[in-house]
């Protein structure tokens, strides 16, 4: 029983981080109908920015609250800029082209980033994984019984940060002018432009927002995993993407539910079966969901018009 509870907690903690990355996919897909394959790699770049900041602030020293805030701020702002550049120079020129061209471009950017960061030329970090500094010193917060169930402080902190960011996003999308514009662009970007909405600016801002979210999520992931490598973006990004599709891509609550489900499924596979099967089960779960509900759990399949 306590083992089950522990797996539940771990699964939820993993799921919240997936959820944050998945929200980025969902936002961009909602506005542009583009699977931003490079999202996970933007996240990876953000993690490296945070890593560099943490080292600039002092090597293994315990970081103060403001230090942690600064690390997150640098990574998130840096990634927002990166997201802007990618959108401006790689996706915007292709906006009126078939969707497949943009998808291929996204895959290209993903490869350029993840393998570009593996080079050890100049300031690039090289292929080997690095240990992420202890930004938040791990400690056990709640212990039930004789260490039957352990909740770590970073699990609680990332859960709170994740929930906070999600609530903020929900507020932004449904309660602000910007969110209204976003939804309008998502519905029909040409008509939105006719109505005086600056579509280019809205799409660029959406990209920046989703990239900043990715950076935040990536840092939480790095704190949990304590290691960073150039390939982490490919795999975390894929998982988050799977989560977004399971929930129905383009749907904000769907992404969160899908991510939590995926986190739980993975945790149970690792806990009760073998950890080597984790990736296969994640994709198997995705294929199963898509076969039963092709639009994802919360998605709607739009009837195609001729």
């Amino acid at each position, binding site marked *: 029983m306590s083992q089950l509870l522990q797996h539940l907690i771990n699964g939820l903690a993993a799921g919240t981080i997936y959820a944050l990355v998945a929200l980025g996919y969902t936002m961009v897909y909602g506005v542009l109908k583009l699977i931003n394959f490079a999202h996970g790699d933007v996240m990876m770049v953000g993690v490296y920015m945070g890593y560099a900041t943490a080292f600039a602030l002092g090597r293994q020293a315990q970081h103060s609250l403001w230090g942690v805030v600064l690390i997150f701020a640098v990574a998130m702002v840096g990634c927002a800029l990166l997201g802007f550049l990618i959108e401006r120079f790689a996706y915007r020129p292709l906006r009126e082209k078939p969707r497949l061209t943009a998808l291929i471009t996204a895959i290209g950017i993903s490869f*350029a980033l993840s393998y570009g960061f593996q080079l050890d030329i100049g300031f690039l970090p090289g292929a080997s994984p690095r240990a992420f500094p202890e930004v938040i010193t791990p400690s056990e917060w709640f212990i039930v019984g004789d260490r039957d169930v352990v909740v770590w402080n970073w699990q609680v902190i990332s859960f709170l940060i994740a929930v906070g960011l999600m609530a903020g996003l929900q507020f932004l999308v449904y309660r602000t002018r910007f969110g209204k514009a976003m939804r309008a662009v998502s519905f029909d970007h040409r008509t939105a432009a006719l109505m005086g909405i600056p579509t280019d600016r809205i799409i660029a801002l959406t990209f920046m927002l989703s990239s900043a979210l990715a950076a935040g999520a990536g840092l939480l992931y790095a704190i949990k995993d304590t290691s960073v490598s150039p390939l982490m973006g490919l795999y975390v990004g894929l998982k988050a993407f799977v989560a977004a599709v399971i929930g129905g891509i383009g749907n904000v609550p769907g992404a969160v539910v899908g991510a939590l489900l995926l986190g739980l499924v993975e945790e149970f596979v690792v806990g009760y079966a073998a950890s080597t099967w984790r990736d296969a089960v994640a994709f198997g779960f995705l294929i199963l969901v898509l076969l039963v509900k092709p639009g994802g759990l919360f998605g709607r399949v739009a009837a195609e018009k001729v």
Partner: protein
Amino acid sequence: MAVPGATTLSDETVGRVPPALRGLLPVLIAAPVLALAEVLLGASPFATYLLSVVGVNIILAVSLNIVNGMTGQFSIGHAGFMAVGAYIAGVTSLSLKEVALSFLPVAASDQVLFTVALLTGGVAAALCGFLVGLPSLRLRGDYLAIVTLGFGEIIRVVVQNTEAFGRALGLSGIPQYSSVAMVYFWVFLVVLVARRIAGSSHGRSLWAIREDEVAAEAMGVDTTGYKVRAFVISSFFAGIAGGLFAHFVPIINPGSFTFVKSMEIVVMVVLGGLGSTTGAIIAAIFLTLLPEGLRSLFGALGAEGSLAQKVDQIRMPVYGLLLVVLMLARPQGLFGTKELWDVVPRWLPRKKKGMS
């Protein structure tokens, strides 16, 4: 072609060959060339290896082109089918290692067994292609791409966890039956099949699906059936390519069939032009030989060994940027949907419009 009075020079030339021989003509030309290559290369293992890799990549690119280019179903898990073919053919060969057909000389018997192993791998891959093709019943576009990607990853994990496939260590000791002649026989076959499909009514249906799936369906094209068949044919040849690969490298392991390998093949197809068999072949040759060329160039320039080693590191980011630049500058790829005979200079004898 049937326009009266418009008989072209090439029609006349072809007309002189007896009809029964027409289909065999490419074989009659290719067989001596291959035999010559086999003899000339006997002394150089590296050239043999390189030619084999090029051949395998051509098979992969041309077969992926049937799904990605002709049918417009963006599949990014081709390495998965290759893995199925490689492992199944490898295991078959390993279990047949001690068997020999007594009524044949050893070399011939080996080749027969090799063919059996290859076909087993190909059929296994084709079955997997059928399984992947089925969801395309309900999924399209981006979603299908993700399912193929997931399928490729699932195969990798399954292989990594199966005792019979050597787990993460891989399969070694597969007899090295593969030869340049064998590889290029299959290259010839896959190109022939791809071209025959493109010209047939079957191929016209695939093109229709690629251009507008809804309209194709409205015109009475059985879209699901054609898509599944395209997947089956394509994955069969990917399996064959895997089998050939398994029989000339010393060891196959799950690391050879990752997402990265799939993307390499996608880059070949996109660079050549989605839908152009010529483009797929040329891009496969170019992209396979480019790293080797750069490596020997750096070596010849006397650059420190490190630079030559970096070629492999630089390859993947360059592939990524190449995709981006291609999409921005020339989204149809080098050849678009054209074939060799559409782009050769006008003064060369060739057919007028229409499929060959």
